[in-house]
């Protein structure tokens, strides 16, 4: 398996009529998670989130691919 870079957001049971909707649902939830946090708290939240999602993905070769793309653009 390799890293998915095409649009991949969806929510079980939800029907979408517009292509932008699933991604916007995700992005809103992401920003909302940070509401009322200061910068330090937000950085901690992001770190915890990366760890949780990484474990969920599990495949370290996929994670290495993502890490490389993320780092190359910074």
């Amino acid at each position: 398996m390799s890293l998915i870079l095409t649009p991949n957001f969806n929510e079980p049971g939800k029907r979408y009529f517009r292509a932008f909707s699933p991604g916007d649902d995700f992005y809103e939830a992401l920003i909302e998670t940070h509401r009322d946090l200061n910068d330090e708290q937000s950085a901690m939240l992001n770190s915890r989130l990366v760890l949780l999602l990484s474990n969920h993905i599990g495949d370290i070769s996929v994670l290495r691919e993502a890490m490389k793309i993320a780092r190359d653009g910074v």
Partner: protein
Amino acid sequence: MLGTYSYPKFEYVAPPELKSGETGHYPVVVVGAGPVGLAAAIELAQSGLPVVVLDDDDTVSVGSRGVCYAKRALEILDRIGVGDACVARGVSWNVGRTFFREAEVYNFNLLPQPDHKRPGMINLQQYYLEEFLVRRARELPGLDLRFRNKVVSVSPAGNGATLQVETPDGSYALTADWLIVADGARSAIRGLMNLDIEGRVFLDRFLIADVVMKADFPAERWFWFDPPFHPGQSVLLHRQADSVYRIDFQLGWQADPEEEKKPEKVIPRIRAMLGADREFELEWVSVYTFQCRRMQQFRHGRVLFVGDAAHQVSPFGARGANSGIQDSDNLCWKLSLVLDGKAPDSLLDSYSEERVFAADENIMNSTRSTDFITPKSRTSLNFRNAVLTLARDHAFARTLVNSGRLSVPSFLTGSRLNTPDDDAFAGDMVPGAPMDDAPMQEDGTEFWLLDRVGNRFMALVHVEDPAAVDANLAREFKSLAGEPIPLEVVLVSAKPGRAPEGLRVFEDGRGRFAERYDSTPGTVYLIRPDQHVTARWRAFDAGRVKAALARATCNSH
């Protein structure tokens, strides 16, 4: 300041009530002669109802204001007779480009499918739309358009409302069975009735400038995040009619609106963007803030709120005027049936339910765009910029770039007027869907489907061969037109041919209807007067069609 447009001055005529001294009575009075109020008045007058429109002004919108009119609004404007004028004058476009700092990161096409009559969007200054609507309104004998008639009091009662109206010649009273309130974001009527409108205020300011210039920019929407000529903020460029360009600069909450409007402040900003060599003239400048909010419900007894009076959004999705025009379209057929005694007034509660649902969708989408465009925290800004840096190379990030989710109609899937599917269908034309367009033919003439449906209930019945339709079945189809709420049955077929009983046939030669509606011989689509699907089946059954029609008009018992 405006050079490319001369403002019409509409004549004030003393209303008959002032001469007679009597209180006038009308079935429907509309307050507000903006795009939404005029659209409602025209649609009602076209269906044969006498309508009075009251407006406190005597000209059109000052400044370009609402400039983007979406495909769905154009389809409604077609049905009220101004679509062609708007498209001929406006600038049609489908492509939007998004830039981050110096480079393009993403572009979208609003209408990637071929074979639709109308483009995804046109840009047209609001004053042109209003001028065309006033011209159309004046062609209709039952439409009484009263300029410089200001409503100063409103007294709703069980069976209507009494209005006190001020004119240059003094004041008069009139009563209405139904009042449509289309008097805009600062609705005076809403205030007079002490009704609340709640939501969120955004702490940001934007400068809009209309600039006249010779430029060969393509007819596209260009949006910049953090451009070198306006660092840290966003900028939006739209081409309008008459070589007028609309430029929106995000200014931030700290900006002083009076200071920012001065030409000596505005011109350097534009010069930084366009380059020192570009000649241009400033036509109109305004600084705005915005809110996202709506009323709890849009129906209050005999008083019906439409457009900005009922709900407001940020401007980033062009979801203001476009949704207001859809409010009017949703309301008018329902009000006509109620006034004719053919539907109970609970049908008007469905107006509020359906358009509150649409307003919430518009508010959600425009709020998401606003939050992306103007991040509220360091972390939001980091995520926003991370998306923009990934977007150049990776498709998933491009779908997250949100420079405005432009106005599209709501799928009213939760409406109680719909009859849920019993049969299996693929695609998006579910009960509640706004109809997709398709090229068709009738008697050898090509036309667009959406030009020949709407303003009445219709059933589109797909047949293999129109000439082979059984005469008894054809008589049954025809008899539906004689029901209390007439239903016109039209056959749809891939094959040309003459149907018995003079039934009309829409020929789907290119197969777009079959494809977009997942339609096969036997399929029946029941269509509302506002071109929303309300029921569909794989086979015709008169009993089921009648039940669905009753349900769509709140006549089920």
